[in-house]
Every structure is written in structure tokens, then in C-alpha cells.
């Protein structure tokens, strides 16, 4: 067996690598949310921000490919673990009660899959513009891509608001367990700090979800408009 295979046959190794990849994704999600908050500064700010990113195609595509790879590693490893876990109990309990295990922790595979679907949708929708593009050519007055316009267009529609709010809830659930979990997986435990580690997940989740929801609802409630 190759060394790589041996390495990843260990669930502990797989988890450590998956959590590293996951942390990368968490970092992106935070960065993404903070960047997008610029919509509150008006169309000029966010469109400018988007064009700066696009003006550096090498950086942009490196980041995109990198992100894709990281996501691929995360999804691939966790999927493999999840399948193995499913095999580890072939007959389910007739009665099942959990005492400690939170809903978020028990549904990581489900929230993860939903999240993946949501991200694909989101990419097709707002990044590639395949789904429901704005009617106009999508450029602003300076000829930049009108990100602001896209956002306003999207979240004026209750259907998309619904999908994105649901996506955020799924993201929140996933992150709330994921981030706290990282400490345990890396073996970081400390009598005095353990409760902070436990709060880290819900904290990060809340931060990201509230930031994203703010944009969605700001548009939907008419605080941001073209």
C-alpha cells in the first residue's frame, strides 16, 4: 500500500487533514462575508472591491483553484469517513436517545451535503450567473461588473431569500460543531479553556451567519436598493 493510502486509512489522520481543510474553508467563509459587507457602503465600494479581485486574474484563479482543492479534500475525506462510519453500525437501534450529542454534531454529514449543494447553487447563481441573471448587461456605470446590482436583484426575490436563509442556517449548524471540534481533533484541551473552545464553534457560526443574513435582509427589507 502506498504511504498516502496508509496515512489516510487512519481516521485520526483523515480527521486532522479534513479539519485543516475545513479551517481553510472557514477562513474563506469569514473573508467572503466581511468582503460582502461592503454592500452597506454602497454599490461603488463593493463593485470596486470585486473589480480589484478580478484585476488580478492569477491571484484570483490560484485562490479559486486552491479553494476548490481544499474543498475537495474536505469533502472527499469526510465523505469517506462518513461512509465508513455508516458501515460501522449495520443494524440501527429501534429506540435511540441521545443524551449529549447535539443535533449539529449528529447531522454533520447531512449539513455538509446540503452545504455542498447550496454552494454549487450559489456559484451558478451569483458567481457564474447561470441561474436567473439580472436582465441588464450586468455592468455598472464605470463598466465594472455590477455585483451590487446582482445582490439586490437576487434578494429582492423571496424565493432566493428563502434558499439563502436556509443555506445560512445549514452553514451555521455545520460551523457550530465544526469549529469547536477542531480543538478536540488536534488534541488541544485545557481545564480552564475548554469551555471557550466549546463556545468557539457557535461563536464563529453566529458571526458568519449574522453577517450574511444582514446583507440578505437588508436587501429584502428594502434598506439596500438600486
Amino acid at each position, binding site marked *: 500500500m502506498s504511504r498516502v493510502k496508509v496515512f489516510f*486509512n*487512519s*481516521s*485520526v*489522520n*483523515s*480527521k*486532522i487533514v479534513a479539519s485543516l481543510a475545513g479551517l481553510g474553508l472557514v477562513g474563506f467563509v469569514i473573508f467572503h462575508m466581511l468582503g460582502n459587507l461592503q454592500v452597506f457602503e454602497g454599490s461603488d465600494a463593493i463593485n470596486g472591491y470585486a473589480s480589484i479581485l478580478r484585476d488580478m486574474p492569477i491571484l484570483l484563479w490560484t485562490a479559486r483553484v486552491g479553494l476548490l482543492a481544499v474543498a475537495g479534500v474536505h469533502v472527499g475525506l469526510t465523505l469517506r*469517513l462518513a461512509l*465508513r*462510519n455508516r*458501515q*460501522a*453500525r*449495520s*443494524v*440501527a*437501534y*429501534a*429506540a*435511540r*436517545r*441521545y*443524551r*449529549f*450529542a*447535539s443535533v449539529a*454534531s*449528529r447531522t*454533520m454529514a447531512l449539513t455538509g451535503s446540503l452545504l455542498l449543494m447550496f454552494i454549487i447553487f450559489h456559484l451558478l447563481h451569483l458567481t457564474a450567473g447561470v441561474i436567473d441573471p439580472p436582465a441588464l448587461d450586468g455592468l455598472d456605470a464605470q463598466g465594472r461588473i455590477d455585483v451590487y446590482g446582482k445582490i439586490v436583484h437576487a434578494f429582492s426575490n423571496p424565493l432566493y431569500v428563502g434558499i439563502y436563509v436556509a443555506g445560512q442556517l445549514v452553514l451555521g449548524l455545520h460551523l457550530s*460543531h465544526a469549529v*469547536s*471540534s477542531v*480543538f*478536540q*481533533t*488536534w*488534541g*488541544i*484541551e485545557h481545564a480552564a479553556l*475548554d469551555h471557550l473552545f466549546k463556545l468557539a464553534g457557535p461563536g464563529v457560526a453566529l458571526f458568519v451567519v449574522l453577517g450574511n443574513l444582514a446583507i440578505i435582509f437588508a436587501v429584502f427589507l428594502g434598506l439596500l436598493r438600486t
Partner: protein
Amino acid sequence: MKFTLRIWRQGGPNERGGFVTYLADEVSPDMSFLEMLDALNQRLIAAGEEPVAFEHDCREGICGSCSLVIDGVPHGPDRGVTTCQLYMRRFADEKTITIEPWRAKAFPIIKDLVVDRRALDRIMQAGGYISVNTGGAVDGNTLLIGKDEAETAMDAASCIGCGACVAACKNASAMLFVAAKVSHLAMLPQGKPERTRRVMAMVQAMEREGFGSCGNQYECEAVCPKHVSVRFIAMLNREYLRSGILGTKIPARSDPPHGESY
């Protein structure tokens, strides 16, 4: 007291199992859960039927034999006890109680509620020991061990190997069991020389047996009759990381042959 029992019956490893409902009446609140099953079995035997097979031995919560999932929770509703330490006064009268075996691929059912837990022994055989020969040990006080370290080692060592952690885990993972042994031995100076090899070997054995991986859900700690903490799993992960980094030593060079032969 009176209870309706839904008990998993299965003739053998390869037979189909299913729930059978029994009525347990004249149950005294002072009875232990297993004594309640004893009474049921006495009735079944006297009627010429096969009694419900379940594992039990010391009946004081230390041998780790008893293994019932009671209404969906291994060892039943009380925390920090084994099934044999569970008393019927804990249940509301006239309740229906569902009793299932430990369920995990690594714990095949032998009969009814009895499962084969040898997988845990094989994990221990992979490295859950300190390789010292009998005789020639140094005086017990030669290596001083601080009280706190000794106590923490004892916390980990108090695992009774019942397998409730596996039964409770959504992923049927044996991480808490492995973590308890790895942490116990890694914490003591006597266990340090082998810590790198031990954690690698034990985790590998765990994977081989078909247990799942840890989802950090901590249901294991919630059902552990000895309150073994999930912090030991963090410690296991740390030991594992450490071994991954330090485990690759400079390979030992085999000595060139001497003129002298053995």
C-alpha cells in the same frame, strides 16, 4: 410494579432477530434491572422456554460484562452506572421498556442480548500494555509520580471495557476506549518509552476491527459508567499527532558483521 418489556431476541449470529414483548409483573422497586430480567427468565425456564440471554457477572458495576441498551441509551437512564447497578425504582410504573443489544459491526451478536466484544481485547493486544518482564522491577518509589498525574492516570484507567461508548456512539467508534488506555499509560513515566508505538498500533487495530471514527459528539462520555472524560480523546489525538511527527526516527543502522560469530 409492572412493566412491558420489548426485548430483542435472536437465536444465533446468523439468524434473524426481532423484538418479543413480555410482561414483567410483581416487580419490586428494590430489584435491580438484571434481577427483574432474572425473574422473567425464571418464569420462561419453568415454562420450558429459552430464557433471554444477557451478559452479567459481578453485578456491582466493575467487571464490564453487562451490556444492555435500555430505551435507546446504553446502561439505561442513570448516569455513571452499569446496567447491573440500575434499580427499578428508577422507572415509572407500567412503562414499556425497550431492551436491545450493543449494536456495532465490530460487536457481532452471539445470542439475544449477548455480543462478542473480543475486538476490544484485540485492540489491547496491539499495544495496551507496558512490555516489562516479571521480576527485576525497580522499587515502586524510584520514579516519583505526582498525585495529580497519578489521579488523572487513574481516571483514565478506570475504564471497565464494557463497550457502552461504542454502543452509544453514532459512528460506533471505540475512541474513548482506546483513548482511556493510551492516556493512562502515556501519563505515567513507566509508559513513556513505548508511547509512540502504542498509540499508532492501538489506533490501527481499532480501524482494523471496523469501528467508526470519532465525530466529537461526546455521547460516549455521557453513557460511560466510569465517567471517563472525552478529554482523553483529545489526549489520544495529541499523542497520535506527536507520534506522527516524532515517530519517524533516524533509521537504526544494522551493525556490520563482526569477525566473532554468535
